[in-house]
């Protein structure tokens, strides 16, 4: 069984490309939209937008549904929220580890 933190790498990888982030950002503001509609507002081809949308879908960040000839895409932010809360938990994890280290040193 995987946990949200296991998908963190995929989310970071998907959002590491600046154009892809821009696609995601515009989709967040305007979804559901088609790849053609997104490409009309960006200095990249429709084909490039479609590839970015595929990469975002692979990370679970967007979903698509058929609507006529083209698919309509919308964001599914749960993996991003999971990645953000994973990062926020890093400090708390160290607090737990250091408490456990202190207890370990007392016992030995």
């Amino acid at each position, binding site marked *: 069984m995987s946990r949200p933190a296991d998908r963190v790498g995929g989310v970071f990888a998907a959002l590491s490309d600046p154009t892809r982030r821009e696609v995601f*950002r515009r989709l*967040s503001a305007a979804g559901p939209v088609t790849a053609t509609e997104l490409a009309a507002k960006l200095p990249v081809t429709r084909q490039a937008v479609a590839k970015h949308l595929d990469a975002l879908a692979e990370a679970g960040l967007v979903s698509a549904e058929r609507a006529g000839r083209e698919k309509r895409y919308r964001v599914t932010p749960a993996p*991003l929220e999971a990645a953000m809360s*994973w990062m926020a938990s890093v*400090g708390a994890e160290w607090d737990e*580890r*250091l408490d456990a280290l202190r207890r370990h040193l007392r016992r030995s």
Partner: protein
Amino acid sequence: MERVERQIVLDAPADDVWAALTEPRRLSAWIGAQVVALDVRAGGRGTARRADGAERRIRIEDVEPPRRLAFRWWPYELDGHPGPGTRVEFVLDAIGPAQTRLTVTESGLPRFVDATGGEPGVVVEMRA
């Protein structure tokens, strides 16, 4: 958030704290995973295993016993995207013969900034 730092004063000599940071059996007692192997020298490798079997790779970067230890590790990744991982650095400062101040810093975390600013949905900036 780019780095996380924590500090603690431990009632143990620096050599003992160093052993707790570098011996797999002792690391496993507090780090939150079973450390099955750790080759403690620059470039040395290690593996931490979670209860469900997922593994986490460790690679030692700096070793200066008993004062400084740094390694790079990667989240438990099941989706094949290791990325650059994060760097963990321990600095040990002896406070007399029986106490040690330990500082841990984890750095290299990507920064996500929620930039909704009134727009619907989640809009993000990512800064390296």
